[in-house]
């Protein structure tokens, strides 16, 4: 008995937000200068257009974007935990959105919670392994978290993976 359906649904379809953010970037105010030393703001990441899994309604964008705005405002005001709360609220709405997990990872990194930062970035990677730009950012973030923890070899490995992805992106 074949399982074509399952295979189809196994294709990542978890980030309608990437496209939404790219679109929103033009329409609204320029993205906040949340400086991520790993590179440009993640919102610019491009989304591969893959079908969404059969039967799954696409994750709603409006509320997620609104909550990301809230998170950004909180972050700018220095309230990192408030920012995390907003991102978590968004994750309850769109739990498979790789960008949201990455966003949370960035907040944890800024808080110096290295292990959580890495784990969250890995979860982001697992949800969108083929979104190269986002994957590269996740590896950069992991590299920083590892270096901060004193794992130099692990950091180099993560950087190598990031560089490979960035090279391929061009």
């Amino acid at each position: 008995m074949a399982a074509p359906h399952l295979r189809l649904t196994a294709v990542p379809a978890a980030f309608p937000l990437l496209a939404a953010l790219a679109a929103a970037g033009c329409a609204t105010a320029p993205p906040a200068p949340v400086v991520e030393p790993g590179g440009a703001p993640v919102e610019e990441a491009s989304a591969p257009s893959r079908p969404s899994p059969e039967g799954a309604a696409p994750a709603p964008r409006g509320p997620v974007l609104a909550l990301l705005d809230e998170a950004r405002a909180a972050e700018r005001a220095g309230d990192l935990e408030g920012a995390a709360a907003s991102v978590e609220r968004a994750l309850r709405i769109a739990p498979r959105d790789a960008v949201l997990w990455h966003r949370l990872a960035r907040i944890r990194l800024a808080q110096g919670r290295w292990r959580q930062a890495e784990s969250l970035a890995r979860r982001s990677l697992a949800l969108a392994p083929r979104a190269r730009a986002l994957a590269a950012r996740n590896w950069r973030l992991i590299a920083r978290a590892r270096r901060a923890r004193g794992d130099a070899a692990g950091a180099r490995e993560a950087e190598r993976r990031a560089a490979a992805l960035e090279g391929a992106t061009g």
Partner: protein
Amino acid sequence: MARGRGRRRRGGRRGARRRAGWRRRVALRAGVLALLALAAWVAWLDLRIRTEFEGRRWELPASVYARPLELYEGAAVGREAVLGELRRLGYRPVPGAPRPGTYALEGARLRIHTRRFRFWDGEEPPRRVTVRFAGGRVAGLAPAGGGALALLRLEPALIGKFYPRHREDRVLVRLEQVPRLLVDALVAVEDRGFWRHHGVDPRAIARALWADIRAGALVQGGSTLTQQLVKNFFLGSERTLRRKATEAVMALLLELHYSKEEILEAYLNEVYLGQDGPRAIHGFGLASRFYFGRPLEELDLPRIALLVGLVKGPSYYDPRRHPRRARERRDLVLRLLAERGVVGRAEAARAARAPLGVVPRPPALAEYPAFMDLVRRQLAREYREEDLRSQGLRIFTTLDPLVQAAAERALARGIAALERARGLPRGSLQGAVVVLDAGTGEALAVVGGRDPRYAGFDRALDARRPVGSLVKPAVYLAALAHPERWTLATLVEDEPLEVPLDDGGVWAPRNHDERFRGPVPLYRALAESLNVPTARVGLAVGVPAVVDVLRRLGVRRTLRPYPALLLGAVSLTPLEAAGAYLTLATGGFRTPVRATRAVLTAEGEPLSRYPLETEAVLDPRIVFLVDHALQRVVREGTARGLARYLPVERLGIAGKTGTTDELRDSWFAGFAGNRLAVVWLGRDDNAPVGLSGAAGALQVWGRLMAGLLPTLTPFAPVEPEGIEWAHIDPATGLRADGGCAGSVELPFVAGSAPAERAPCAGTPGPLRWLRRIFD
């Protein structure tokens, strides 16, 4: 003595004079002493007043809230669900929804005027929003006055409290929050001179005395609000003259130190206004919710009059037990208010025609004992029991009342149906359900037994039972981590197996149907929950490796690495089992189960937050393979029966049945994309129930998920990098092609798919044709 007497006798007049002086001195001294004593007494009362009133912090129960309902375009919440939530919150239908706490049904639309609410991340202002629905979902939000609104968060429902030991309950209000009308009415009825007197009102006393004399009995008290407050705060209820004096002095002192507003606010929060079983209802804030199901700010004149009337005798005038008395009292208050010019006569007359407006006695806020148990235990790591019971903390939890209701219903009805169908003694079967959000690990529902209101033994948290085949995914995770040796297509012998044990015994596992099938591919061994192949694989990979996987999945108990562990000689609670399966649902990320999101102080200041945490613990590729096999459990294995309840194919449901020796425990653990649930059925005395996992727990699970169907998303795991797919001939475990009937497509860790072709494969078209004829 003798000498003194002699002196006196000798003393004569001089002695008498001296005696008078002595008496004067004694009197003087006594007077001074008495004054000093009085002053000391007053000073002592003063000290008590200042320290106790100043530092007066009521012991406030902690309030526990459900998750807030979030409405946004696309939210899987239908109109009925929103209406149910609004009713739970005590919102009432009023055309146009003019005030906070009201809503209006306008055709297919719902207009809601929300209440202000302080959340962890700030205050949600009152909003007036029209919600559109379509197809069981929110189709759009339109705030009054135009503009856009992406997200509407309703206030969360109060689901329980942690009470102080004396069981006094109150909802503190600030004076600004209290309707002016209520204050005026209270003053007019209880203490007309309040704004003028200094704590004691001689005119009121005179009036009362006059009334008593005329009636020849004690019919009227002249107590001011201040005196009543003093009595409640500092003194007992005995009615002696001395106590009256103390009360008067303390009332004067209280007025000396504090403003009228402070005294009034304390009174409004202190006054006793009713009883709810062991729970004493104090203060107008709580009384308003207790009698009318709404906050104080939303009370109208007849309700205010009723509450003010209650002050005189909350049990005598109890509007639920003695509605007639309560009504007479209310109408008397209304007449009094009109007489004293607080309200107009017409207004009072209109109010007197209104019904009492009392809601049925609210459930005793003990609806979710099992869930509250979980909250309490998780908070106990950081909070002292004492503080939970007295500091008025505001606890925001993850409970979803809709999911909880579905879980309770599924368990109660499922158990009853099973008892009927199987001829089990009625009431013998017990069970527990845990439902988690499959992405974040938030606990959405916890049911501790078939009677969900019973706050006794909480089986979801405390029934530690052998999990049976629920453990099998751990065995296969351990094995598949060696792709060079095991893949989902690897054939395993289903032949009799005997393992000598250290203690001299022999372990000889058997399949549930007592049959042996010869070689079976690994995925089928899991799908059919075959014990013997699983034991073989587990022994080959090593029991310690399986124990290691269980740890990674999140099992924290001490696990003894005996062979029997491979077939489920591991005892877990339903909650623990859910936590372990969550790691499978997340693709290998252990995520702590949380019941609490945040805790705020009574004043609304954030105290602690319980953030979402996650940890990569397993190779995502291996989890992907096992999740695929778990989907096959549901599509073609032991959990086929779920199709009766759900479109399992579309939802990609993954799950596993579990059964223990002699059918004592019946388990099912499984997940859709966004919901994970574990069901356990069994008996409290651990006697056999005659139900396998599929015959018992699965049925409850199916009912539960069917109840949640509109909100479920499909489980469609993202394929990790390093996976390849291949068609396999299950008979040989080798690569198949179109020539093989009954071939299956399976995922493999890249490079591990079999290269060798099955005999049925690889032959050119026409020959294949022939071949099939001859087979």
